[in-house]
């Protein structure tokens, strides 16, 4: 077992034993389910909307070359600098370069999973820049030196009291469990940071090819300040974020809000098309858009799983995933948690290192059922399992499976083995749940039902004779 799989198992064991945490996550999501369903019903047809969204993303992803070119050239026409980054290192170098060139000291940043993916904050801090997260949830986990717990709700694992304690400890504020007071504490810190910052970093929810604009969805107004107050704005955009037309947002904005947060539409949705133009009173002097590949093109080359690039990072699949709900977001050890993370991480970071995430699933399919852009998530977990075995068969498992085939092709042997099982079962009962029990992985936490006294075959034969 590789180190990532071991870490995952340990974390999952730890988290599943924490009943209070499990209960907290279930409760936190109950409110989301109610709101999500309420606003899904406001669509004329949610299933029709999913079909349309999947078709739009299919068009975009399957003609990515054309749409990205269109997106970049329109941005450049308005003075935006577009940088095509093949990998994480290229982005990190580029952003550090821009910051140095402008003698930046302080950086303000709005929420971006793509920036998390390339560990941009670590790089910038190591290079001597101060980076402050302006999204409240992100700010909280930043103060805790933790990665986001959930790709949409980064601090969902924390209670108000925990946040109050954190603020008391790190910001010297007074103890309070009033959410408004907590927000005001963070806001006082943040307002100062916005004014001090020389550079703002953001992600993008959508990249509109037709108009050459990025679209940012938020609830706190922090992204608007992050992108417009500092003199330089850098947006990190995964290449799969492209939508062909501006009018596509009419579907995707409410869809993202509904599936992602159980909202009809988020409080702020803003389009950014370039730096401050002549005659405009505000906006950044420079606007950089970094288009990140980071092995997304490898996923693009995989026709079977290409639809994973449809993902709009709404997090709906996490919210319905019984694995996520029981092991929590940090157990995955990945930037993208839950089903979508289990599908794409093997592509982004290596199949053999991350195949365990595809195995850690009961394949229940709740993710696929809920995905607004219809990614075949749970079947892709099966595809990852198959690809991992084809590339490097696990020796012991191979032996077991060969034995399985041998027996299942010989009904007599199968019947005989079941008979032996019936004979041995009383012995297994004696050692049930102990280290001597061959079924321990099952029986340690669950009872093993007794095999039927007579098999179906025996009953069937007896009946036929009558």
């Amino acid at each position: 077992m590789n180190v990532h799989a071991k870490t995952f198992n340990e974390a999952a064991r730890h988290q599943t034993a924490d009943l209070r945490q499990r209960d907290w996550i279930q409760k936190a999501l109950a409110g989301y389910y109610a709101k999500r369903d309420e606003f899904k019903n406001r669509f004329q047809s949610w299933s029709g909307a999913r079909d349309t969204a999947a078709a739009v993303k299919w068009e975009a992803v399957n003609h990515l070359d054309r749409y990205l070119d269109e997106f970049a050239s329109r941005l450049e026409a308005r003075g935006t600098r577009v940088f095509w980054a093949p990998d994480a290192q290229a982005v990190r170098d580029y952003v550090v370069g821009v910051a140095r060139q402008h003698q930046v000291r302080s950086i303000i940043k709005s929420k971006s999973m793509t920036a998390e993916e390339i560990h941009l904050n670590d790089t910038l801090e190591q290079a001597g820049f101060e980076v402050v997260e302006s999204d409240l949830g992100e700010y909280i986990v930043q103060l805790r030196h933790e990665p986001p717990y959930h790709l949409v709700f980064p601090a969902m694992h924390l209670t108000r009291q925990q946040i109050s304690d954190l603020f008391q400890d790190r910001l010297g504020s007074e103890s309070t469990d009033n959410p408004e007071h907590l927000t005001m504490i963070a806001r006082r810190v943040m307002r100062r940071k916005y004014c001090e910052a020389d550079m703002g970093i953001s992600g993008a929810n959508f990249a509109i090819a037709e108009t050459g604009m990025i679209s940012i969805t938020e609830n706190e107004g922090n992204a608007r300040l992050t992108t417009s107050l500092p003199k330089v704005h850098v947006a990190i955009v995964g290449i799969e974020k492209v939508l062909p037309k501006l009018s596509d947002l009419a579907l995707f904005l409410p869809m993202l809000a509904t599936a992602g947060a159980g909202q009809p539409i988020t409080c702020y949705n803003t389009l950014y098309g370039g730096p401050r133009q002549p005659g405009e009173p505000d906006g950044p002097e420079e606007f950089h858009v970094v288009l990140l590949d980071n092995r997304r093109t490898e996923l693009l080359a995989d026709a079977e799983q290409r639809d994973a690039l449809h993902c709009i990072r709404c997090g709906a699949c996490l919210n319905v995933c019984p694995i996520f709900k029981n092991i929590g977001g940090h157990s995955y050890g990945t930037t993208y948690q839950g089903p979508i993370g289990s599908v794409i991480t093997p592509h982004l970071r290596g199949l053999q290192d991350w195949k365990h995430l595809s195995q850690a699933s009961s394949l229940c399919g709740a993710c696929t059922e809920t995905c607004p852009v219809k990614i075949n998530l749970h079947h892709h977990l099966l595809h990852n399992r198959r690809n991992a075995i084809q590339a490097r068969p696990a020796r012991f498992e191979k032996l077991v499976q060969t034995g399985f085939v041998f027996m299942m092709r010989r009904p007599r042997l199968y019947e005989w083995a079941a008979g032996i099982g019936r004979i041995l079962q009383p012995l297994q009962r004696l050692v049930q749940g102990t280290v001597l029990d061959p079924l321990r992985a099952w029986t340690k936490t669950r009872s093993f039902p007794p095999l039927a006294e007579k098999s179906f075959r025996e009953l069937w034969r007896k009946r036929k004779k009558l």
Partner: protein
Amino acid sequence: MNIVQVLERLGHTVDYPEAQTCCGQPAFNSGFWDEARAVAERQIAIFQDAEIVVIASGSCGAMVKVFYPELFHGHPRETEARALAAKTFEFSDFLVNRLGVLDVGARFPGRATFHDGCHGLRELGLKNPPRQLLQHVRGLELVEMKEAETCCGFGGTFAVKFPMISTAMGEVKCASIAETGAEFVISNDSSCLMQIRGVLERQGKSVKTLHLAEVLAQT
């Protein structure tokens, strides 16, 4: 035998080819598709002459109906695999959607809740058929549990590869079951029932697990 009884009660002739074994799902789900194909090929040959194939578990049903066509995609046996998929039905699917039967003449007094096996529910789309059948059982009071569609945590080899996650999911499921105050939990998937029973028994709860056919066979 319960399925045989119900089908015969409805006037059908039932055969059970004794050469059949497993559908191959354990190998398929573990990523061993060649091995799964080797097992599946036999079943395809065995059931070639059957008019209709009825399967007791949604999970095995999904394997034959949904995954055989994918497993044999581009394979010389693809046509036969698709033919088998087309004539295969999960038990409740066969009764309700193929035969149009909702009342099989069953009587079963008690308060029960129904658990949706994920494969039956999401691969085969069988939300209503088992419930419709149960609603027509005399004496049976059917109550819905909270999040009936949430997985019980079995998931095949997942249950023993990740027992801590699987058990945690089982505990959530069993809490929902207990909350209904039902005496019975019914499902159309034997593997879910094994998981649910395993957790319930270990928790010392008295709720009994039953397969849909066990209920429908009672008169």
